[in-house]
């Protein structure tokens, strides 16, 4: 059967307005992304009300361009997929309102997409997801291990107890005087420095799959402040390398532990911080050494950040599982997968 499907996918959960047209779940016909980074750089972080206002400026432009670039008429579409959570409520509402209006006007089914499923499904653009699988989701708001026994089943088996990894990167970046968002700059500095500070690796050896980054953050800030007080100049490269090594070591240790205990065929790395070179390289090396039959799939670099394409990829899967919403769909800013650490036993 070569039934084709065309999905218009809308994403507006944080500071990117993005609309994509996705064919058969894994072919990108268009993926328009309007980023607000330049705006939020003024404030050193995302200001929700400003983000919502930018989304309204962009939403119809992105829809129109996505259709035009894909050379798809709205009559050709099979469904509209939209991120309805988690994220900033005002930002989500713009995408949800637009998706509902578009779906209603064109008599198309509406698919509600959990943003985190979207991140995982960015991996589909590399190769099909094979189950059972495990996803390591690392972003500004999340650091979690998600077990997927079968398609459309998501169980959190471990997550951060305090800050998300991306959050720690941004805070440390601020202390180092780097521009928001600092992740990429720290990653680059880290590659030029060495781990001489040996910051703590919280919970690295605990028998669970949880993470913690607030201790690392405090240790980092204390080190910098102490040096300031005694007028000592610390190497930014070594600071970045030491911070990053601690983050990567903890994430890698927990992920390897989960891979050892679960019967999985695939490990997926996704989320904004999945673009981090240090993390990608270390996981490649460690997993390659320890597991022969585990397929390690990294979300494509240009699809690690928020985008409509990943929402379309997840939307196609949800459509096959008959997951549809009606016109009362609302934004759900704190949408979460079920927390099931026992799923593993």
């Amino acid at each position, binding site marked *: 059967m070569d039934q084709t499907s065309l999905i218009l996918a809308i994403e507006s959960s944080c500071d990117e*307005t*993005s609309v994509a047209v996705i064919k058969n779940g894994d072919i990108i016909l268009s*993926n*328009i*992304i*309007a*980023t*607000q980074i*330049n*705006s939020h750089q*003024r*404030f050193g972080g995302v*200001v929700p*009300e*400003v983000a*919502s*206002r*930018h989304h*309204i*400026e*962009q*939403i*119809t*432009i992105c*829809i*129109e*361009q996505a259709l035009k670039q894909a050379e798809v008429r*709205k009559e050709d579409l099979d469904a509209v997929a939209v991120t309805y959570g988690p994220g900033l*409520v*005002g930002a989500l*509402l*713009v995408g*949800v*309102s*637009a998706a*509902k*209006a*578009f779906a*209603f*006007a*064109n008599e198309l089914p509406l698919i509600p997409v959990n943003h985190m499923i979207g991140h995982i499904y960015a991996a589909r653009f590399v190769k099909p997801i094979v189950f059972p699988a495990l996803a390591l989701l690392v972003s500004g708001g999340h650091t979690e291990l998600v077990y997927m026994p079968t398609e459309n089943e998501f169980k959190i088996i471990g997550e951060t107890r305090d800050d998300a990894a991306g959050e720690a990167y941004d805070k440390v970046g601020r202390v180092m005087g780097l521009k928001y968002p600092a992740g990429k700059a720290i990653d680059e500095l880290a590659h030029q420095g060495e781990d001489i500070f040996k910051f703590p690796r919280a919970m690295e050896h605990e028998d669970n799959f949880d993470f913690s980054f607030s201790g690392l953050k405090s240790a980092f800030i204390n080190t910098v402040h102490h040096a300031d007080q005694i007028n000592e100049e610390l190497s930014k490269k070594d600071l970045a390398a030491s911070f990053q090594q601690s983050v990567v070591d903890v994430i890698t240790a927990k992920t390897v532990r989960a891979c050892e205990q679960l019967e999985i065929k695939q490990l997926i790395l996704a989320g904004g911080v999945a673009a981090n070179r240090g993390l990608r390289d270390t996981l490649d090396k460690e997993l390659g050494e320890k597991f022969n039959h585990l397929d390690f799939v990294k979300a494509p670099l*240009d699809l690690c950040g928020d*985008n409509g394409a990943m929402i379309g990829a997840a939307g196609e899967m949800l459509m096959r599982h008959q997951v549809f919403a*009606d*016109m*009362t*769909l*609302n*934004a759900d800013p704190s949408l979460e997968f079920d927390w099931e650490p026992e799923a593993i036993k």
Partner: protein
Amino acid sequence: MKILAMDTSNVTLSVAVLDSEQLLAMQTTNIKRNHSKQLMPIISQTLAEAGMALNEIDRIVVAKGPGSYTGLRIAVTTAKTLALTLNAELVGVSSLEMLVPNAPQNGLVVPFFDARNGNVFAGIYEKNGEQVVNVLADQHISFEKLLAKINELGRPVYFVSSQFEQFQTMVENTLVVVAEHSGKLNSLPNAHALGILGLQKTELENVYTFVPAYLRVTEAERNWKEKHPNDENKESYVRQIN
């Protein structure tokens, strides 16, 4: 001309379908409920009651603000997207102006919404039958200053606001002109009036660039502008990377 008019700028949600000035169907709720959940279903029901298909609509009229930021986002995004995909005309009408037809008489009309801390969103309008002309632009203003401006005009005014009672003492103590007010009966917005005002407008909105009339910059932007008075490269705040 077939018109779909919608307002979610405050607690009231009102949707109407008009054939020119003639109202075919209208639904109005005034419950603190979720406009995001309610708006599309009510649009759908109102169209059904009017016996009209969405693609018959020639013009979409939306109350563009001022009002609750969340409410404005919902109606303006919905209206923009409908207009884009239906290829319909898009007209934005001030959420304050849409209250002016509520006044039972001609003359100066002052619609306002409470904006906390003694401030209001308000405008002054001249009503003459179905014609409404703006006298003082919609703005975020202290109620005290608004009263001073009304005193300057030196003519009787009619206030339209569901929050009038909160300000009644100030009006009585400060105003030197004759003032009447809408009371409960005439204080709420209705999409029929919105549709008629939208029908009269000759200026159409651009579906791509149309945004709500918030009438207030965000606090973060206000602080930033104070520190960076010369930096105004707004164009590059958002850029397409794909």
